[in-house]
């Protein structure tokens, strides 16, 4: 066995003590480790479209103005709306708000009161926003026929872009159905007047009491203007189509409303039947009630198929107006030249028709008579095509135009109810806005901006853990008693506190609102935060996806890394 001889081991002689500590110390940081190379998926900030913006025919940036309201920036909110809809005080009152039906909050507790917020911002803007002055600097003149929401909207955006605009209107005041159709208890005339006043300040000229086909003609307008926009709506009341309907005591719903809306008190009976299920029928009935008469509504389908704005139907019932469903008139019974009874028939629902609603089918032998002294007929409106020239293509019942209001003639555009048949105010506004873009593009060859990003954030894309239940702020209004015998506005609008509280319920679906979650939850310190935005530090991001998952609103997407 060999023993180690310590003496022979050479000694290491140190000149000085080592200056390293007696154990290993790391003196540099991990920044040299570019852990981004581990990544398989890459997060990206990518805003999607909220369902409300998508559902709004005018594509209002709803989520955008809710965020502004949350910051109490009401004027900025107003300015953001009028980029897409110049009349928020109008739509905030009468729109059927498809935005609310698509609101993701609806699947959680209750959809946001979007139109209530819109109305607040509209009224706020009417009071506080600085009016945009005339800016006509383009030597092109556009004639618009019809001053309903389609015509007004198109006029607004064209005038704002600097075009000269003249609006021709058959009635003595502009507004279309907003003035002659929708009653004051839903849309006060002074609100309408103020909205229209915005256009006058912008330099839009109104020529009222001018009827196309009577005082002015399309051929002349084509000569004297660079483009023409036809927005004449649908103003011909459809006839009942039953025997003896031309009897004294049978009125047209539109005419009845037009009289009331011009401040007259039409002479009408005491036992009134209103026929129809659309806005005209419901408004006629509720107007009659305000004259002190309790009418009955007869509708040939069921509540589900009623084309009227659902809330207004509900209000009519709240006010005590009975609605008889699945009943259709078949004959007017008269005595001494005046209606005394309406013969009706019971219906049942059959297969869906071309509108997708189930068709009413008469039940044989179910006829019965209802005592009455007047009938208000409100079964729909039609388009008057007789004022057009022959060279404009039609479908036979409406003007043919594409989504951008372009007809078969290059400088003639058309939009609103006269193209689509009776629809809603916001549809007409959307048509007016799109046509303004198309007219501008016609002169400048500028490309028309496309619609919002098609990727829509649905309820299932949200991280719902971050939201708390919150009740919708109720809209203050008149109770049923207070509505009797007057045309005062029924809904009174939110105040600042209410609008703030309601907007605060908005999920901001699909759009980053700087909630910080991505920054907070990143385990790899790879989210760089600056005052106005976040950025990913791809040098270090490992692609775990926590940021995308914890984003409450689906504003981060994960994409597969490309192999290199």
């Amino acid at each position, binding site marked *: 066995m060999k023993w180690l001889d310590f003496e022979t081991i050479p000694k290491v002689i140190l000149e000085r003590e080592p200056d390293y500590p007696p154990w290993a110390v*790391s003196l540099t940081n991990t*920044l040299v480790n570019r*852990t981004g190379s581990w990544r398989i998926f890459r997060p990206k900030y990518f805003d999607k479209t909220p369902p409300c913006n998508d559902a709004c025919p005018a594509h209002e940036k709803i989520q955008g103005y809710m965020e502004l309201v949350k910051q109490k920036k009401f004027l900025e909110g107003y300015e953001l709306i009028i980029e897409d809809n110049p009349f928020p005080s109008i739509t905030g009152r009468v729109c059927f708000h498809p935005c609310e039906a698509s609101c993701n909050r609806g699947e959680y507790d209750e959809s946001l009161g979007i139109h209530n917020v819109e109305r607040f911002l509209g009224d706020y803007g009417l009071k506080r926003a600085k009016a945009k002055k005339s800016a006509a600097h383009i030597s092109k003149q556009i004639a618009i026929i019809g001053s309903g929401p389609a015509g007004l909207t198109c006029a607004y955006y064209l005038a704002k872009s600097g075009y000269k605009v003249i609006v021709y209107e058959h009635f003595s005041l502009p507004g279309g159905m907003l003035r002659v159709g929708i009653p004051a208890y839903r849309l006060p005339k002074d609100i309408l007047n103020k909205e229209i006043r915005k256009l006058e300040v912008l330099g839009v000229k109104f020529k009222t009491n001018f009827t196309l086909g009577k005082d002015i003609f399309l051929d002349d307008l084509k000569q004297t203007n660079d483009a023409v926009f036809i927005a004449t709506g649908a103003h011909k009341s459809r006839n009942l189509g039953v025997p003896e309907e031309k009897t004294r005591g049978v009125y047209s719903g539109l005419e009845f409303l037009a009289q009331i809306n011009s401040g007259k008190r039409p002479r009408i009976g005491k036992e009134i039947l209103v026929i129809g299920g659309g806005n005209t029928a419901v408004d006629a009935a509720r107007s009659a009630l305000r004259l002190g008469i309790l009418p009955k509504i007869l509708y040939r389908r069921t509540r589900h198929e009623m084309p009227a704005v659902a809330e207004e139907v509900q209000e009519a019932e709240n006010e005590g107006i009975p609605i008889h469903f699945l009943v259709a008139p078949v004959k007017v019974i008269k005595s001494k030249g005046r209606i005394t009874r309406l013969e009706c028939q019971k219906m049942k629902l059959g297969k869906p028709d071309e509108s997708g609603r189930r068709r009413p089918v008469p039940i044989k032998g179910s006829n019965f008579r209802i005592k009455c002294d007047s009938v208000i007929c409100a079964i729909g409106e039609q388009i008057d095509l007789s004022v057009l020239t022959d060279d404009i293509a039609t479908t036979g019942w409406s003007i043919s135009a594409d989504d951008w209001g372009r007809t078969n003639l290059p400088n003639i555009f058309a939009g609103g109810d006269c193209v689509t048949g009776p629809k809603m105010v916001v549809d007409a506004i959307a048509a007016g806005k799109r046509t303004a873009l198309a007219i501008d593009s016609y002169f400048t060859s500028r490309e028309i901006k496309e619609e919002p990003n098609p990727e829509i954030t649905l309820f299932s894309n949200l991280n719902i853990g971050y939201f708390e239940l919150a009740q919708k702020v109720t809209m203050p209004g008149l109770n049923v008693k207070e509505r009797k015998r007057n045309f005062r506005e029924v809904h009174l609008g939110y105040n600042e506190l209410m609008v703030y509280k309601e907007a605060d319920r908005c999920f901001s679906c699909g759009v980053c609102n700087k909630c910080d979650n991505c920054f907070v939850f990143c385990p790899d310190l790879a989210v760089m935060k600056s005052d106005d935005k976040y950025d990913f530090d791809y040098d270090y991001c490992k692609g775990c996806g*926590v940021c*995308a998952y914890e984003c409450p609103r689906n504003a981060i997407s994960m994409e597969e890394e490309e192999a290199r």
Partner: protein
Amino acid sequence: MKFEIPQKEYMYPGHVACPGCGGAYSMRMALKALGERTIIVIPACCWSIIDGPFPLHACKPPVFHTAFETAAIAASGIKAGLDIQGKTDITVMSWAGDGGTLDIGIQALSGAAERNDDFIYVCYDNEAYMNTGIQRSSATPWGAWTTTTPAETPKSEPKKNITEIMIAHRIPYAATTTLAYPDDMIRKFKKAKSIKGTKFIHIFAPCPTGWKMAPDLMVKICRLAVDSNVFPLYECEYGIHYTINHIPKKPIPVEEYLKPQGRFSHLTKAMIEHIQKSVNFEWELLKQRAGVS
């Protein structure tokens, strides 16, 4: 809702935790609360790797790497050394895994707590020995898969309740917290820092790798753990005063918490029911202790 957390970072990116590591995230939050004047003591565990290989180092405050069983005693020693030097403004924090706390380190920890040494002891609990390849620890829950408790014979012992063990030491502060509640976590670390004596913080810190779970669920799984009462958030002062910090309005079934995790995928309906029962039982017990009905 916006989480109000300190903006300054006391950690560098480039650390080598797996994607979606709950432990890495927890350290980031802890240091945000404690700040620069901190010394961290790390025994053998994932975090001894995460901090970076020599000569790299991810935490801005110094880290003292120590042996597996010595997290608490090393901290006691460092604190004593600082005291002798008159450096009283430095927080000493032990940062150990569940293995290093509930198993091998419990003796040193119990000793330090008995002496009420002035430091914060953190157990980031990923419910197994992750660093060495997912072996079961006494923090592994009943029924879970690990490499040493395969799906055919999953773990048959319930999870050891370390927080109650520490509370029984009557230390001035013991708390549970988890990732989905960053404000809760920050608040508890700040509170721990302000108290003299032994403070114990138990962090439920998911390990996507060891739990066979998608890494993007790192935070979500914590939310589910709390909302199902699998891991209640509470704190206790001096071993007596309990406060439950989050009482789910309507607890979700434990199944929702178990489902996204591959380590529970073998569970039968009866086993899930058993887990639900024991979770309910523990929750009632905790409520009794906290005097909540």
